[in-house]
């Protein structure tokens, strides 16, 4: 039964007249690195919010490793680690204090919290700034400490919203390595991004969503169908060609 790590069953959400997510269905196999791609406003963050308990769906279910997020939130939330996007952290804490806070909230043994947070800070290159307030971190550092928060209780499913945004290439490589070894060890990662290169390099399974619906889902190779993911994505979503004369005033020379 736990072959499926995350199952989204007919999720639906509207804000007033605007339908953000409409009957979204998705199954993520355990042990996969799953990429969620879509244009701006496709409903990626809304979907992830509904899967993590932040936003109540109008209809549908989200099931994490057998536990319904909205019927049995405690069990579901214990099994996943989340890196949300566009959400503040408790940024008046230092990085170390924040990690400890998250660990204790998740009832991880205090001794374990200390060793794990030391290792995470070291791995993500945050050791030097561990005692600085998170509010003073750069955007990339904030992403990294957020990722560390998602990892500290060793969850079996990771939901990451734009995990590499604003992260420098060196740390980016570290994060990729961490995620790869996490999946190799049996964990499942669901990440959203609009960086096709990242998804193409990292993920084995991909879903393309636009206007709150799943346009295509399958293994990376199925979706690519011999072309680059970028090309296929633009085809699926319906890109528009820039007119020769458009924005001509921008060419100042």
């Amino acid at each position, binding site marked *: 039964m736990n072959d499926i790590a995350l199952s989204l069953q007919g999720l639906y959400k509207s804000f007033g007249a605007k339908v953000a997510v409409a009957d979204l269905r998705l199954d993520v196999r355990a042990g996969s690195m799953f990429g969620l791609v879509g244009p701006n406003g496709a409903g990626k963050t809304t979907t992830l919010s509904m899967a993590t308990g*932040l936003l109540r769906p109008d209809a549908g279910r989200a099931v994490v490793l057998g536990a319904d997020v909205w019927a049995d*939130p405690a069990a579901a939330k214990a099994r996943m680690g989340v890196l*949300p996007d566009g959400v*503040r952290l408790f940024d008046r*804490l230092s990085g170390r204090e924040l990690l400890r806070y998250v660990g204790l*909230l998740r009832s991880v043994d205090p001794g374990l919290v200390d060793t794990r947070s030391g290792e995470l800070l070291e791995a993500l290159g945050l050791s030097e700034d561990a005692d*600085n307030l998170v509010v003073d971190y750069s955007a990339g550092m904030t992403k990294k400490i957020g990722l560390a928060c998602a990892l500290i209780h060793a969850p079996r499913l990771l939901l990451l919203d734009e995990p590499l945004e604003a992260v420098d290439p060196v740390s980016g490589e570290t994060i990729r390595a961490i995620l790869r070894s996490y999946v190799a060890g049996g964990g499942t990662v669901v990440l959203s991004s609009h960086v096709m290169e990242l998804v193409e390099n990292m993920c084995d399974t991909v879903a393309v969503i636009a206007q709150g619906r799943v346009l295509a889902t399958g293994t990376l190779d199925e979706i690519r169908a011999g072309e680059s993911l970028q090309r296929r994505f633009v085809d699926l979503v319906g890109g528009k060609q820039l007119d020769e004369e458009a924005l001509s005033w921008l060419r100042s020379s």
Partner: protein
Amino acid sequence: MVAVLVRLKLTLLKNALLRSVLKVVGLVLGALYGLGVIAVSYAGFVALRAYGSVELISGVTVLAFSAVTLGWVVFSVLVSGIDETLSPAKFALLPVSARRLQPGLLVAGLLGIPGIATTVVALGLVVAWSGSVAPAVAALLAVPLGVVTCFLLSRLATDALAEMLSTRRFRDLAVVALALSGVGIAVGVNVVAQGVGTDPAAWGASLERGAEIAGWTPLGWAWAVPASVAQGQWLAAAARLLLAVALVVACWAGWRHFLQRRLTSPLEGRSGSGKVRPGGAVDRLFGTSPKGAVAARSVRYWRRDPRHLANLASLVVLPAMVVVLQFVQPDPQDLVIVLAPLTISLILGTVVAFELAYDGSALALHVHTGLRGRDDRAGRLLAVAALVVPLLTVVVLACVAVAGRWDLLVASLAMTFGTALVVSGVASWISVFWPGHAPPPGGNPFGKGSSGGVEGMLSFLLVTGVSVVVSAPVLAAGIASLFVDGLEWLALALGLGIGGAVVAGGVLLGGRSLDRRWPEVMRSVTALET
């Protein structure tokens, strides 16, 4: 530029109103209140014009308008906050200078209920002086000066304080300044009240004296110009006009200074920087349970977040005002002094209730980690207890000592702590339903909504109402103990019993509601974030 900013402000207002019924209700109530104030004051102006002597008109208008000016400053700092719809930080990326923004921000800032009401009421000054030509002309000149002074002084005060609160060095100083300003006002009010006295015959003379004094303070320079003209004191009139203009110019420059600062370095991000010491007593104090972790985090925020500090200061302002007010009176009432700590208990509700709103979207962490609602509620109460129990104890002891009524110690302790417990418990529960919203941390701690908006007001009234009813037995026993010896022990037992039960109930009920309402709470507390 002025038209652009005014249009922007109106568009933002319209969009905000379209999204929230509560905002519409708030606006309508505010408008009704404003209309009431305008109606009453115009009735007064017309009566003055018809029956008042020059001395009476001078006395009333100068004192009243000086009070209005002071009110602008005090209210914007302590109560309502300033309108941050057009926060200067939002213009930081645009190629506009403070100099170009200023006129537009002034007009847009006055375009609200307080601004419009003040302007309309101020125009009543012309009505009051319309008996002869020269004072009326002077009044027409004084009105814009006075209204602009109101606005600029309130901006300057909040900007300066916000600036102080956002730097570590001056943070504590600013908190003390805030607390002292409350005391200062209390003393001022009392001195005026004493000057007037209770003898009606002395009224006229004191009114004149008060107006004369107020008219020579920055608060009254502009407003007193027509009065000087009417009394034929041309030299004084010229001096006051000159001073009023100079004040506006100085405030304008001062405001520009702060605007420039916020345009180039928004408050956000500069606040609370620096290394912190790892580990520490706070962690050991609260243990390692989720509940304890929440408490430790809350305590750290009390120390590091300017908004919490401003809140803490306001806790002390009210009792200090009550006590000082008694002291400058000829015969201080011991009882009032002894009961003053009770005011802390009553405002404590807002402190507990705003905790969720202050967290803003960071609260998502509590949702993601599956923190049980009751651990959240209990942890925050533990943190409040760690700060407020010592504070209340000290304040109660101080008040009892000052009044010299050690026989009332137990009664005072019983009522203060009993009510504090009840209020905390009730607020823990009710705030889950109306968490309100607050400006984000690092935003202007005096920004609008720093007191929760209409929703915050509603929850405050509800919390206070319910708490007073629930703690009635404690208060009754406490007051009865003044007449019947030994009842204070009953009050203490009732206070701890009822209070303890309400806290337990508030944590359990509030926790259960929170477990069910996380998404709704999230939506409410993130309302101001973009």
